[in-house]
C-alpha cells in the first residue's frame, strides 16, 4: 500500500460517481456498470458489437466459377463474440494507474489467453496491432497494453512512459473509452472454415 486508503477511497468514489453520471453514454457503447462498486474494484460488462463473419470455401458466385481456394464471407446476424467482464482495481489510485483484469462473466474466472477475445488498435503508421497480450512479466496474466492501464506502465518496455505523466489528464472514464475502442469498436471476430479445421481470427477495422 503506497497511498493512504482514505485518499484512494475518495478518488475511487469520484471516479465511480463520474461513471454513474455517464451511464447512458457507457451503455450506448455496450458497457454496463455491474452492481454497486465497492473500493477498490469497479466491474463492467462489455458487450461485443460486431457480428461474427464466417469465411467459407466458395465454388461459384452466380454463374461464375471461382478459382480454387476462393472464400466467401457471410455475417451471421445471431452471432457475435461473448460478453466479458472487465475488473478494474483502484488500489493506490491515483498514484498508480488502475489495474485491469478480464473475467468470464458467468464463472468469474480469469480465462486462458488462448480462449479470450482479442483487442486491437489501428494507427495510420503502425496499422493494426494486438494490444491484449499474454503473460505480463510481473502478474503472469493476460494484460491490456494500453496507456492508462497499470500493467502497461509497469511493463519494463514502457518504463519511460510513466503513469504520473498522464494521471492529470486521464481518469477511469477515459481509460474505459480507450478500452472500448480497442476491445469493442475496432474488433471484428472472424471464423474461417477450412477443409479439416476452423480458425478464429480477429480483424481490426481500419479506423484511426
Amino acid at each position, binding site marked *: 500500500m503506497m497511498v493512504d486508503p482514505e485518499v484512494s477511497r475518495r478518488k475511487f468514489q469520484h471516479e465511480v460517481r463520474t461513471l454513474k453520471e*455517464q451511464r447512458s453514454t457507457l451503455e450506448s457503447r455496450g458497457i454496463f456498470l455491474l452492481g454497486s462498486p465497492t473500493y477498490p474494484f469497479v466491474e463492467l460488462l462489455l458487450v461485443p458489437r460486431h457480428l461474427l463473419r464466417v469465411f467459407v470455401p466458395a465454388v461459384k458466385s452466380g454463374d461464375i466459377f471461382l478459382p480454387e481456394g476462393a472464400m466467401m464471407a457471410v455475417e451471421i446476424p445471431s452471432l457475435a463474440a461473448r460478453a466479458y467482464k472487465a475488473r478494474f482495481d483502484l488500489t493506490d489510485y491515483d498514484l498508480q494507474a488502475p489495474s485491469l483484469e478480464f473475467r468470464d462473466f458467468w464463472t468469474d474466472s480469469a480465462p486462458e489467453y488462448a480462449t479470450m477475445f482479442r483487442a486491437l*488498435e489501428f494507427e495510420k503508421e503502425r496499422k*493494426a*496491432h494486438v*494490444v491484449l497480450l499474454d503473460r505480463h512479466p510481473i502478474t503472469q496474466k493476460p494484460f491490456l497494453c*494500453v496507456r492508462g492501464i497499470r500493467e502497461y506502465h509497469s511493463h519494463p518496455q514502457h518504463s519511460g512512459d510513466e503513469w504520473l505523466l498522464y494521471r492529470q489528464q486521464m*481518469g477511469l472514464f477515459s481509460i474505459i473509452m480507450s478500452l472500448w*475502442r480497442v476491445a469493442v469498436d475496432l474488433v471484428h471476430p472472424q471464423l474461417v472454415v477450412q477443409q479439416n479445421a476452423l480458425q478464429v481470427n480477429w480483424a481490426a477495422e481500419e479506423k484511426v
Partner: protein
Amino acid sequence: MLNFAAEDSLWRFRTRTIPEPADERSFEVPKVDHRVGLVFIINGMDYPIDVSVEAPLVTAVERALVESRNTGRPPSEWEVRNTSGVLLETGRTIEDLGLKNGTRLFLSLRVGAGGTYQ
C-alpha cells in the same frame, strides 16, 4: 448668415445620410446566428463551449482544455471523436464537419498502445 446656417445644417444632414461601410456591414447575416454550442466530454465531465461555426474545431478544443484545466499537454496530443467513435479533423471548421448545436464530442488523450503484430 441665416442662409449659411441653413446650408450648413443641410450639409450635415447629407453627411449623416451617406451610407458608411459600417452600415453596409449591417446587411450581412448577424454573426450571432453563426454560433453553436458544443459539449466536450473530458474524463467523463461535460464542458459546453459556445463557438462560431466558421472557426476550426481546434479553437473550441483549446477552450475546452483551458476550461477543464487540462493545459499540461498541448492540444495536438488530444483527439476529438464523435459519439460513434469517429475521429474528427480539428483543422476543419465546425461547419465543414457538420457539427450541430448540442453535439457531444469526446475529447481525450490519444490511445497510446504497445502491443505486437498478429
